[in-house]
């Protein structure tokens, strides 16, 4: 479980996040949702430690990241996997090489064991073995995302971060990726935090949702609460389109 307590973050005196407190549960897909520019990415990067918050605590199962030493942060990082918005695969390595990379760096295994582990992860994300030898530039965006997931789970992380995992993907592929993240989260009891503004993902996999509005936490709940909640910020965000307004009417009249 990751717990954020009274987190504040500003850039050049401009407040981006103000007094955010939230819990992210293990074995569940926790989503951070909100409009563009509301501070989702900044929140996620503050939780991982790429940004240093001015105030507040980030507790990884009780261990506070904010006052850890450099070495402790490094050790914690080996329990963390992250899926970047643009996949961020290493161009100079093959698909297999990308998944092997964290293993070669940190795992105390023989080469054969590493290869087996990497292949297992790639198979787990449903990638065909004939793609293992290709370079990231030679596979499609959806496959790149899958390889990135395989790389993120190679070292058996306890915490998984995904920044907009389905940006740039078609609705079908998005759903596949979302489901994959959900399955892996539940299977390995990972604390997963997903950053999204895609309504499909929210309705499909949002087990625990935190809505950020202009740097404040505006709502917290699960996908099942969305249609019944009367929180104004949530309604403004979710029911911006007529389609969802009609869906809500249909659901509530049933």
């Amino acid at each position, binding site marked *: 479980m990751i717990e954020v307590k009274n987190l504040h973050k500003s850039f050049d005196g401009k407040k981006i996040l103000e007094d955010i407190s939230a819990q992210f549960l293990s074995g569940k897909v926790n989503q951070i949702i909100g409009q563009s520019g509301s501070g989702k990415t900044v929140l996620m990067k503050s939780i*991982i430690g*790429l940004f240093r918050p001015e105030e507040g605590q980030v507790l990884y199962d009780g261990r506070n990241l904010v006052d850890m030493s450099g070495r402790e*942060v*490094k*050790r*914690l*990082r*080996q329990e*963390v*996997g*992250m899926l*970047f*918005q*643009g996949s*961020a*695969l*290493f*161009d100079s390595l093959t698909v297999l090489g990308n998944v092997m*990379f*964290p293993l*070669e*760096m*940190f795992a105390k295994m023989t080469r054969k064991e590493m290869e087996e582990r990497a292949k297992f992860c790639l198979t787990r994300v449903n990638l065909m073995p004939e793609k293992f030898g290709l370079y990231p530039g030679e596979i499609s965006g959806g496959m790149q995302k899958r390889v990135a997931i395989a790389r993120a789970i190679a*070292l058996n992380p306890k915490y998984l*971060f995904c920044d907009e995992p389905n940006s740039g993907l078609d609705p079908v592929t998005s759903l596949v990726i979302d489901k994959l993240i959900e399955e892996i989260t539940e299977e390995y009891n990972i604390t997963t935090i997903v950053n999204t503004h895609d309504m499909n993902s929210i309705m499909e996999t949002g087990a625990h949702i935190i809505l950020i509005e202009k740097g404040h936490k505006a709502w917290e709940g699960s996908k099942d609460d969305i249609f019944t909640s009367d929180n104004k910020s949530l309604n403004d965000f979710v029911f911006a389109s007529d389609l969802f307004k009609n869906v809500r009417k249909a659901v509530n009249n049933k």
Partner: protein
Amino acid sequence: MLKSFFKEVGEYCLLMRKTFSRPDNWRMVLKQVPTEMVKLGVDSVGIILIISVFMGVIMTMQVVLNTENPMLPRYTTGLMLRDTYLLEFSSTIMCLLLAGKVGSNIASEIGSMRVSEQIDAMEIMGVNSANYLILPKVLGLVLFMPVLVTFCVALGLLGGAGVAQFTDLITMSDYIYGIQYAFIPFYFTQGVIKSLFFGFIISSVSSFYGYYAYGGALAVGRASTHAVVNSSVIMLLADVVLTKIMLT
């Protein structure tokens, strides 16, 4: 202006400290050194070959044609060519050339890894990205510098020999006598020592600009320009200092 200069110097020093800290995994870092040596050093041999030979030819002709003074002994040409190559051309001029080729290559490679979040991905894994990416490049280039210097001197002298062989501007025996006359071996050592410093400057300064290239493809282009210009200027400043130290 001055403030941003000091800020850059500070950031550079911090990056170097991170680069030269103990690797997470020695094998992974060392494994890349030969690759980088080929990419940065061996692949530059072609351009260095062309420039060294042609400059050798041109300088020989210039010296012969422009110093038609009966007071000067005939071996002057060979002597001048040799000392120019040993003292400056093989290190400074060749490295300015390398700054253009290798510097822009390094800066754009690391810069594009920065903007596509590959460096962040490494950091999240707990990998010291500066150490993993920069150290092999610095080691690869610096270790290969002596080879390039030797190669450059040899080819320049060969160019001069070509002039002696194929024209009647200078006889081969005068030329050979010239390039052997009053040879000071330390001049060669000096060229090599300078080139080691220059190799370090090119690889580390270019890596620095690539590493801090924030903001898309434009930033990568800007980084590689800065890498070439600034590593050239820093190299020339270093040249003044090193020459002063070593020749006096």
